[in-house]
């Protein structure tokens, strides 16, 4: 009897407890507390680039390639977690580049708002030319991306949009990506696709502009009536990542890109064998198929080997091999130093020829040495500081990196970059 009474009492208490579970209503945050969007990470990245060379494409393969670029970018990532555990990330990026270019100055080397002057090949290398509007430019590029991650089902989906604007080039792009990993995250496959809808202002060399041959002024530096030429790029990439063991993992990457539209650079000059002049003319379609592999290995307690190889091929006849190695060495828990080396070899595309080497019968032609055959080497070193105890709230790491780039055609460049990461 006593047992029956106790059992009845226990059952009553159980049902009484069930009645206490009330359905949540809007405004009641005690059951499902609202979780605010939080700042996940902020990166401030700056870089300064300087190059010299003697094969300016604007000059038809001759002339100074002196150029400087000061680039800055800030990107912020916010995250939020839904009650069901699904994570959302929102990324905002904003970048500004300022560059000056001695070769761009030669698009129209006449002084501003003056009577037309006779342009001959000597003037293209005249260092006393006054600066024109094309000497410097600013590029602005914001972007927005959103990503959702389901940690229970191990998939991630994202979308993004970006915009870029500089004096003669405007770009609008959209992208989407999806990835799926195994429950232990030892293997992942990721797919990304993007489309760029670009517009290029066809700024031709001054000698080729209407009215120039008869002594007219052609386009003034402030004219905005350049023809707009569309240039679209569609690209997809597939990445497969695999953990090999506790110290080694790799990623295999395969891209495909298709470009359609105006793919030449309108202000690049091309001089033919007979001395006649035209602007760069290239086919209106191009396909690219690069494939690459990354292999990263952590040796001992201090040494990391980051290796990379890429094979590239496109429909314009260019083939290229790129290989790189970086060896971060952890000096202590906070500091690491990273010497790195990159080697690149490419063959010329079938439309390239040097100054005054093009045949008059060529349908497509360029003297842009970026599309010529050459070897290049990049020697760099990086320094990273990420202390266990933060210097100030939010500080996570600061990294600096610099290097020297050399191309076998004589172009040389150096670059210094800086990244401050806040978390």
């Amino acid at each position, binding site marked *: 009897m006593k047992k029956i009474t106790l059992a009845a009492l226990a059952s009553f208490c159980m049902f009484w407890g069930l009645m206490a579970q009330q359905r949540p209503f809007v405004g009641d945050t005690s059951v499902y507390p609202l979780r605010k969007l939080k700042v996940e990470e902020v990166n401030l990245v700056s870089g300064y680039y300087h190059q010299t060379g003697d094969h300016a494409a604007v000059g038809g393969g001759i002339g100074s390639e002196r150029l400087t670029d000061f680039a800055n970018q800030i990107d912020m990532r916010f995250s939020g977690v839904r009650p069901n555990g699904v994570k959302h990330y929102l990324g905002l990026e904003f970048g500004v580049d300022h560059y000056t270019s001695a070769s761009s100055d030669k698009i129209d080397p006449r002084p501003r708002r003056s009577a037309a002057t006779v342009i001959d090949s000597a003037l293209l290398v005249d260092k006393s030319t006054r600066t024109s509007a094309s000497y410097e430019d600013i590029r602005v590029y914001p972007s927005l991306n959103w990503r959702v991650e389901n940690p229970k089902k191990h998939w991630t989906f994202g979308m993004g949009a970006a915009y870029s604007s500089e004096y003669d*080039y405007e770009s609008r792009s959209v992208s989407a990506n999806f990835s799926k990993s195994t429950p*232990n995250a030892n293997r992942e496959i990721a797919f990304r696709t993007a489309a760029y809808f670009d517009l290029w202002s066809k700024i031709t060399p001054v000698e080729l502009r209407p009215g120039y041959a008869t002594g007219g002024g052609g386009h003034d530096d402030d004219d905005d009536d350049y023809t707009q030429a569309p240039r679209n790029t569609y690209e997809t990439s597939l990445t497969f990542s695999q*953990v090999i063991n506790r110290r080694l993992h790799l990623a295999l990457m395969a891209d495909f890109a298709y470009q359609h539209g105006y793919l030449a650079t309108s202000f690049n000059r091309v001089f033919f064998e007979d001395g006649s002049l035209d602007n760069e003319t290239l086919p209106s379609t191009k396909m*690219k198929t690069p494939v690459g592999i990354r292999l990263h290995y*952590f040796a001992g307690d201090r040494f990391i080997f980051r290796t990379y190889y890429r094979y590239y091929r496109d429909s314009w006849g260019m083939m290229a091999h790129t290989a790189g190695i970086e060896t971060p060495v952890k000096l202590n828990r906070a500091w690491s130093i990273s010497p790195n080396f990159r080697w690149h070899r490419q063959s010329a595309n079938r439309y390239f020829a040097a100054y005054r080497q093009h045949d008059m019968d060529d349908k497509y032609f360029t003297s842009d040495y970026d599309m010529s055959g050459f070897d290049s080497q990049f020697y760099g070193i990086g320094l990273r500081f990420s202390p266990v105890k933060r210097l100030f709230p939010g500080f996570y790491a600061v990294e600096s990196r610099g290097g020297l780039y050399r191309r076998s055609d004589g172009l040389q460049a150096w670059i210094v970059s800086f990244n401050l990461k806040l978390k």
Partner: protein
Amino acid sequence: MSKFLKLLFTLYGVAALASCQTVKQYQKQHLNDAEMELATRKVEKFEQNFMLYREGATGANGGKNGGGCGCN
């Protein structure tokens, strides 16, 4: 790419994948190091950008493939 190189990479890839070990999350202290990330880092971004302009080969590195800029 020569047939020999293609065969070499294929065999290397198969051997690497076949020897994969199952690594648990608590065993990934080396793999999860910031400098072991299987991607270019933020500080490398501008290096990658200038190479996009100065070389004809692009892609397969997490960066652009020619769209969004007046590059190759």
